[in-house]
């Protein structure tokens, strides 16, 4: 915006009158203190209560494993993933006989390596 503004008539005297009038205007407006209506006060207070943090509520943060749970889709999905991972470990460590036979049928031949020979790793044997 341009700062060029028309010079008031009356030269220096006009300038002085304009400044006096402005001082009076600023002084008067600065004393105006209009009060807000009750409806506005009630609306803002209600808005404040609605937005108020609740004591004990978990604060949103990027700390801990919260971000990972959120990324995975929350507790139900993360729990399912954990169960699937545990099942995979069990199958890998002590595959059921049916699974071994199925693998033989598909692959033709299977070779087993045991790092813990004869150990009942999961206590599955009586």
């Amino acid at each position: 915006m341009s700062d060029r503004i028309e010079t008031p008539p009356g030269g220096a005297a006009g300038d002085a009158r304009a400044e006096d009038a402005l001082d009076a205007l600023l002084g008067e407006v600065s004393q105006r203190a209009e009060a807000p209506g009750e409806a506005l006060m009630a609306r803002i207070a209600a808005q404040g209560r609605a937005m108020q943090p609740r004591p004990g509520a978990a604060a949103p943060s990027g700390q801990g494993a919260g971000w990972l749970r959120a990324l995975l889709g929350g507790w139900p999905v993360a729990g399912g993933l954990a169960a699937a991972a545990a099942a995979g470990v069990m199958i890998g460590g002590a595959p059921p006989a049916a699974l071994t036979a199925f693998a033989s049928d598909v692959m033709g031949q299977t070779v087993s390596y045991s790092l813990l020979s004869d150990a009942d790793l999961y206590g599955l044997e009586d």
Partner: protein
Amino acid sequence: MSSGAMSLGPAPARLRRGTAVRGAGRLQMQAVPPPEAREDARLALTGLSDGDLLVAYAAGQEAAAQLLTERLVPRVYAQAMRMLADRAEAEDVAQDAMLKLWQVAPDWREGEAQVTTWLYRVTANLCIDRLRRRRRTAPLEAAAEPPDPAPGAAERLQGAARNRALSEALASLPERQARAVALRHLEGLGNPEIAGIMDIGVEAVESLTARGKRALARLLSKRRAELGYEDE
């Protein structure tokens, strides 16, 4: 607005369960107060500084939202009215400014800033945004007020007309000049505080204020008679 820090002091035993207390430099919540202690809890909060009250709000103190509203909204609304001279716009600004306060409350750290200074900045910025929009559209129109036969009605109407004229002139100024003049001459803030609010030096504030006042005087010079200043 209260600015004094407060010690909650000796409170009744039933109140101590549910009031904000100081701990490690911050207010912390104890338990939720029983219903009969709410009024006492409210009274205990009234002595808190604005910053402490905002921390209490963030900690979940039920009465804090109401107290902050009662304490801060009249000032925000009055500031917006002085700059905008329009009730509907001033109400919108007050609501928007307080919305920002509620949002910032959880991150507020007592002692880092004054709530009032923060609100002066937010309110002035919101008003400047509206003055900018007003420049691009039609000039402010006088609200259609019904005739008021009460004593002093003519003076009130003239006061409102003068407020509108000043608001229109502020809308014509460069934004930084308008902000500096409003904070200095309408809100009565000192130059150092304005410098903090505007993130500029004190000398820049003085320069902006002086140029803004000269521009305002020229803009309003033709309206002296209309505004009733011709013979003063």
